[in-house]
């Protein structure tokens, strides 16, 4: 045996970690399908209104389906506490510095839920539109939340994310005039980057447009 003298030897591993990201997401999707759970990945910047929109969706959908939420945040529990008020199970994931959720983190969150008892899983991703684009978590639909308070360039500045989303919500349109943001222009930008995407406008805080989001998500 070579190298016997120093008791050293090689272990071949040959694992490509770059493939694991999508493999984990695919496995999550399989697990969700086995349990008949639909999953929505909600993406948007901090302050775009993800949590408020999720609360609006829960309000509308709660009478006809059972819902659970996985809320990702870098350090706080604020989002989970805001959603728990609704009486639906919430798993808070503090990513501890990571700027995105990934398939593995979401899988661990799913293990803390009774998947047989729920119809819809809403995953609130970390508030950032760049990194989550590279990390599919295994959701049936990706819901992108942009708000007019973030300025007029959110769509053109995040083309990768916009291209990956199925539905885009333009939130806080009641503030468009004060922000001097042209909502039609923003919608056109979104559609130019992703011609397949469905675009919906909302004032999530007041429940305006939530029914349109539900319809666009096919729920």
């Amino acid at each position, binding site marked *: 045996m070579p190298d016997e003298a120093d*008791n*050293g030897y090689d*272990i*071949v*591993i040959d694992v490509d*970690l770059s493939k694991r990201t999508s493999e984990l997401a695919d496995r999550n999707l399989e697990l969700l399908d086995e349990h008949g759970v639909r999953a929505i990945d909600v993406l948007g910047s901090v302050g775009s209104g993800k949590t408020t929109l999720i609360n609006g969706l829960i309000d509308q959908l709660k009478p006809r389906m059972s819902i659970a939420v996985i809320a990702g945040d870098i350090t706080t529990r604020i989002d989970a506490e805001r959603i728990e008020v609704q009486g639906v199970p919430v798993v808070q994931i503090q990513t501890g510095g990571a700027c995105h959720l990934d398939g593995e983190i979401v899988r661990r969150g799913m293990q803390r839920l009774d998947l047989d008892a729920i119809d819809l899983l809403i995953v609130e991703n970390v508030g950032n539109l760049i990194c989550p684009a*590279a990390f599919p978590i295994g959701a049936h639909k990706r819901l992108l939340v942009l708000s007019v308070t973030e300025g007029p360039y959110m769509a053109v500045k995040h*083309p*990768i994310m916009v*291209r990956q989303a199925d539905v885009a919500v333009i939130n806080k349109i009641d503030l468009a005039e004060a922000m001097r943001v042209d909502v039609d222009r923003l919608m056109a930008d979104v559609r130019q980057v992703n011609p397949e995407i469905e675009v919906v406008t909302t004032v999530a805080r007041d429940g305006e447009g939530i029914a349109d989001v539900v319809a666009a998500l096919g729920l």
Partner: protein
Amino acid sequence: MRATARESRTWWRPWGCESMHDVTAARQIARTVLQAAEQQGAGRVEKVRIVLGAMQMIDPEQLEFWLEQILRGSAGEGAEIEIRRNPLTVRCRACGWEGELEVPDDPIYHLMPWIPECPACRAEELQVLGGDELTVESIRVREAEGADEDA
């Protein structure tokens, strides 16, 4: 005060996300390495061999740094980290051209997709043959202490 080119490039990286991805990658590598060593009943890990594809927007020096930090206090502390860069190799689905492509070192591609084209026929339907991987190839380990004494 003017920023140097190097500083401004770092500043351009969106919110330091790249370095966070380096940490994520380093954590996954560390976990893979330590699991394999434990499963084989090995003692110390002396060397970790990694293949880093050119398409991975990861800086090898940062990756090495984070991996060393994460392995501290484990069986992999002090292991030599060997990172081999793999160039992007593609095959054109349109004309069949095969070869290496230079990946542009421009931070804008953290925000925009880079869509390479075939140098022969300009088609954009390229199949990646290699260069998108982040592979833990193998590790070199020492036998565990107990095994040492038996020998």
